[in-house]
């Protein structure tokens, strides 16, 4: 094997971190990949395939493929359940790693979303002997060390908007009000859509867009970019599976999904009811159905409509650790609260992925390649 072209630490093992790590390894650069949770893959490793009779280019399977690449790459050294707690800037960068407190409590068992998660199972400290084969105890997971690296790429991702902040939607109060993230899980784990309250197939479904995004009241003056695409794609999956489903989407502006959007959108418009208004209140009525109240275009009085299931298309907000990370690595935070990629005051520190602002999986991958390229430039591996 050729000698390595230097060493880079990648913080965060979502699709941004995985992609950056993989690109660096392509150029024979060693990578220390640090992930706070017990599993690599970030949010998107748990997403559902959104194909109907055709692939809808949601990108979820690209994450699976990238994870498979990374776990088989000897140049990438993975530290699960580990956090960065210190940075010293001398000749190179000296980074202190500490075990994080992520993982199952007590005797709990956690399973990764992908068969390429290694280990696949992580069990709590008090787990007995009856544990899945190959499971690792959390006490054995995590790195305590100081590592010398030439550069750092921060890819700590985002936090989905917590809709319980918008109290009038009754999220957490009404069982059949769920988030887009929960819908991803439900579709992935059940062949068909089921209602949380009774496991039955809902017939009348509402999607509410821009929950936590484009919201002046919250000070969230950004579009999350991914929620129109994921909502329309998942609505397509639901409709494909159950042609009787009656689906309504409440929206402000519909954003593009990507290539061939005009063709896709024409099709969606033929069966999905688009209402250009955002509901203000959700009440639970009989049979755990939900009544939405909104001011609709073309009507004087607020309209009321009942649904079996309401999906809140939650958006992307700054990662929970952003303030700490910003301080630790001396990176400015932009007016929306995301890391300002270009601003790292420490030479050799870069930012990739949704840590710097909203983006889809494929946008994130493209951006992380670019960040890897910047790091290579810094290392002198490229010009």
């Amino acid at each position: 094997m050729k000698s390595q072209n230097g060493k880079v630490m990648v913080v965060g093992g979502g699709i941004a971190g995985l992609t950056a790590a993989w690109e660096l390894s392509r150029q024979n650069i060693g990578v220390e990949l640090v992930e706070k949770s017990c599993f690599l893959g970030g949010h998107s490793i748990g997403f559902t395939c959104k194909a109907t009779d055709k692939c809808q280019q949601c990108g979820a399977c690209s994450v699976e493929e990238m994870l498979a690449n990374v776990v088989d790459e000897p140049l990438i050294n993975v530290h699960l359940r580990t956090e960065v707690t210190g940075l010293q800037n001398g000749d190179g960068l000296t980074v202190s790693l500490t075990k994080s407190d992520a993982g199952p409590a007590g005797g709990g068992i956690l399973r990764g979303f992908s068969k390429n998660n290694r280990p696949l199972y992580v069990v709590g400290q008090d787990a007995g002997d009856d544990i899945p084969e190959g499971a690792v105890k959390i006490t054995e997971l995590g790195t305590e060390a100081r590592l010398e690296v030439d550069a750092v790429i921060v890819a700590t991702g985002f936090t989905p908007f917590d809709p319980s902040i918008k109290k009038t939607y009754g999220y957490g109060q009404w069982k059949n009000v769920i988030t887009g993230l929960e819908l991803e899980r439900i579709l992935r784990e059940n062949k068909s859509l089921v209602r949380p309250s009774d496991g039955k197939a809902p017939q009348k479904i509402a999607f509410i867009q821009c929950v936590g995004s484009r919201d002046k009241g919250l000070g969230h003056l950004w579009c999350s970019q991914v929620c129109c695409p994921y909502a329309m794609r998942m609505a397509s999956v639901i409709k494909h599976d159950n042609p009787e489903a009656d689906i309504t989407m409440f929206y402000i502006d519909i954003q593009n999904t990507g290539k061939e959007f005009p063709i896709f959108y024409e099709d969606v418009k033929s069966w999905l009811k688009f209402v250009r208004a955002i509901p203000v209140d959700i009440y639970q009525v009989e049979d755990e159905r939900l009544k939405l109240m909104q001011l609709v275009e073309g009507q004087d009085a607020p309209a009321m409509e009942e649904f079996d299931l309401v999906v809140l298309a939650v958006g992307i907000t700054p990662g929970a650790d952003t303030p700490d990370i910003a301080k630790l690595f001396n990176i400015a935070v932009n007016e929306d609260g995301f890391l300002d990629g270009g601003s790292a005051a420490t030479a050799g520190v870069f930012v990739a992925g949704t840590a710097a602002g909203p983006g889809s999986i494929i946008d994130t991958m493209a951006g992380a390649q670019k960040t890897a390229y910047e790091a290579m430039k810094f290392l002198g591996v490229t010009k």
Partner: protein
Amino acid sequence: MTAEKSSNTIEISINTDVLVIGTGAAGAEAAEVISAQGYKVAVAGDGGQDIAQSGRAELIEGAHIRDFAGVAGDFRACFVKDGQRLERNFGAVVIAPGRNVRPQAEPFGLSLGERVITLGELEKILADGNARSKLGGAAVALLLNLTWEGDPQYTARVLEASLAIQQLEGATASIYAGNVKVAAPGLERKFTYVREQGVVCFKPMEKPSIEQTGDKIRITTLDSILRKTLVAEYDYLVVEEKAEPSDRDLDLAYSLRLDTDLEGFLPSNNVHRFPVNSNREGIYIAAPGLGANIALRIKELFGDGVKSVPADRAVVDPEKCTICLTCYRCCPHGAIFWQDGVAAISPLACQGCGICASECPMDAIQIGGFNDKDLRRQVREAVAATQKPAIVAFCCQNSALEAGRAAAEFGMDLPAGLKLIKVPCAGKVDVEFIMQAFVDGADGVMVAACHEGNCKAERGNLFARWRVNEIRKRLEALGIDKQRLLFTTFASNMAKGFAETAAQFAGSL
């Protein structure tokens, strides 16, 4: 060009010159980043003097590609310039797509003129310093995404222009919008700011009707919020510019054998192509901001000019080849060329999908790691060893195999008699293998591919489906229940879907 290194890899020396087609922003960026890697770059297109002056790249000006041949590492482009032929060799090609811009005046029954202008024309007026004399005091209406869906870049241009108008003395800008495309950094904030600066944005429920009388333009809309018919008069109307694929790109797609999407834009709509790949190794599609991404792919392809590749990825037996051209036509990656009177396959360009091997009428092609003898043996073993019902599942290694293995690993219930056979792509599942499985005693055969539009080989799954449909007809003619043969599609993350489909299939047998 090739020299033997060991029995299973060969070293190929690669031409590391790069041809960039297109002199716009994306082409210039790509040329710059690639040349920074130390590779020689030639840029072909009209204009582009600044690229030539930078000294970063040679300019092949005003030349048009007449013929294009070869494979990654060894492309041959024949240009025609001033009636002269110019032949050049390159290891890789970058296409910076162009756009045809179609002004959208006609959908409103209008024609372009002094008062009805395009966004491009407006931007010129705003840029040339005479904006004040021309637009000062004027009321300007800008149309946004009413006749086409547009994109964030287009929305950003409209917002920028509206703001510039609003800041001119006495001038006002109003936007009539369909979906405002704010899915890009900073755009929602900008949209908010622009409105705070006094630009009014109407989102009509239906397409507005617009009339021009003399110097005035009258727009009638049904406003969605006020729910009233609104009539307003303007001095200028700025119509949309719809982007369409350029004729040059459509020509290039044809002569370079590249897939486009359904709208005609390069490349095809397939996640495996994003962000810069095409269906052919060594040919990349540029866009502004993606220079580094292209540089990385080219670095990976070229390395230091010599590349080790498996020698047996796909190999033609020259004794058997009758030059029927089938393989050339069906290879999705343009990896097949002619050498010494028979088909030859570039080990660098070939992706090992095996479509050619399954389609070759002479069985002249073998795929490394998946030769026919091995696959036949696997089918035999699969059928012999199992409990009932015996199911042979040919699984694409990119999707179904991953899903099937994940289902097993997650402990999901799988039929006891199910055996997975790994294939490089469902396109490698020969009719012969399927028939053999039935002859050997399989109760059911499953051909499991990627979803349509997700095949790395673009059409391997379609080939597989056609073959399955053909065989089902044949089975029916033979009096065999055609339900015993199933074509199905998965993504690698569909463990649950795989388990359920397999269980259902087993139940039906």
